[in-house]
């Protein structure tokens, strides 16, 4: 995911302030990471026909993060950004587990999402094909694919987020990539 206008991480001092409940630091944390969190939830939920829950679950993600923030230790690759995306992914997967994705034609899904989301879909020529390809993936495959290709997590990190082994991560990624390539090829041919 592109990171326009915002640094990848807040600095250590600001993180410590947020951990201590400082209002300005909490605000900075949300502002720096909301795009990433919203993007992940959007990519997880819209293809499943749950676009209306994106903001609610993004808020839930930040609330859970704030509650656990005092104990967060951002060592090495376990960055705050990765931590937040992990929470967002699990929140989305749990939501989809509780209420399985609706099976709808893409047009129906597209019409049901908010105007802003529709604009996102239609902004790009291949958007519909990508969405359809991602919508065809089971949620757990979708999660692995987005964590790898949008957020750059390595196989081990994805395995930890999804609580599966690395081999399963690889097979899920392979299948997801094949679906995406096929969808994009059809757009290209067509």
């Amino acid at each position, binding site marked *: 995911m592109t990171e326009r206008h915002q640094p990848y991480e807040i600095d250590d001092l600001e993180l410590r302030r947020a951990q201590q409940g400082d209002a300005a630091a909490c605000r900075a944390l949300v502002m720096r990471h909301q795009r990433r969190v919203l*993007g992940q939830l959007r990519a997880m939920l819209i293809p499943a026909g749950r676009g209306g829950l994106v903001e609610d679950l993004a808020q839930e993600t930040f609330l859970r993060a704030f509650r656990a923030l005092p104990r967060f230790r951002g060592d090495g690759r376990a960055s705050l950004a990765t931590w937040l995306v992990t929470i967002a992914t699990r929140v989305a997967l749990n939501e989809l587990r509780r209420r399985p994705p609706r099976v709808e034609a893409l047009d129906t899904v597209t019409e049901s999402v908010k105007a802003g989301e529709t604009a996102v879909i239609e902004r790009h020529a291949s958007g519909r094909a990508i969405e359809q390809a991602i919508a065809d993936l089971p949620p757990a495959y979708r999660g692995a694919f987005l964590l790898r290709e949008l957020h750059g997590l390595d196989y081990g990190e994805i395995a930890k987020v999804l609580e599966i082994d690395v081999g399963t991560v690889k097979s899920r990624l392979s299948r997801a990539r094949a679906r995406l390539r096929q969808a994009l090829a059809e757009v290209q041919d067509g």
Partner: protein
Amino acid sequence: MDSPLGADEGSNGALNDDERAALAAWADDDDPSDAFTEKVLCAWFAEQAGSTEEGVVEEPALTSEPRAAASRRRAVGWVGALATAAVVMLMVRVLPRASEVERETAGHACAPAMAQERGPADERGRHEPMTPGAVSAEPESTVLGAQAGQVLAHHCNPCHDSTLPDAKTGALEVFDLDKPYWWSTMSDAQLEDASLRVRELAGSTDDERERVGTFVQAELQRRARAG
């Protein structure tokens, strides 16, 4: 756009730059609105106000930093918002309604507005207990459970929330705060133990101890009534 397919078309290796760009363009959106930021912070500080006796934002610990003054000014600004939030929280407590007892909604200062945005709770299907029949539909117990869950989220996470990266399997088997009825997996003894632990926590406030204690007593009484 240019061809989204790269040289490794047909393979299932990592996406190439064009493919990744196409994917990112689809998932990306305009910068989130300030309203979203405010909504999150409003909910968070209202929750904080609801779980502390003072109900005010703690003074930043690193006050020697140049930005401390600005932070204090912002904190003062939050006091007004928190006062409003406290009133809303009080109303939620005094007027428990089925549509307001969802765990996540009960924790938000903007709960009524959010509930309205989301539509009827039944439509979302999030009231289903983990163990059908094991949890009463009594609103009082459910509201108290949601409030106690907030307290536990502050003191027992990340171990007891399956959405957090450091959650512990053993802890989740006892209770998982991500579940709407997180207490339905707990035995009577485990409920009493949770209440005891919160009472003994150095960092817990009187209000937090009372919330958890009240819920545990109410739930134990409900179970006794239900046999």
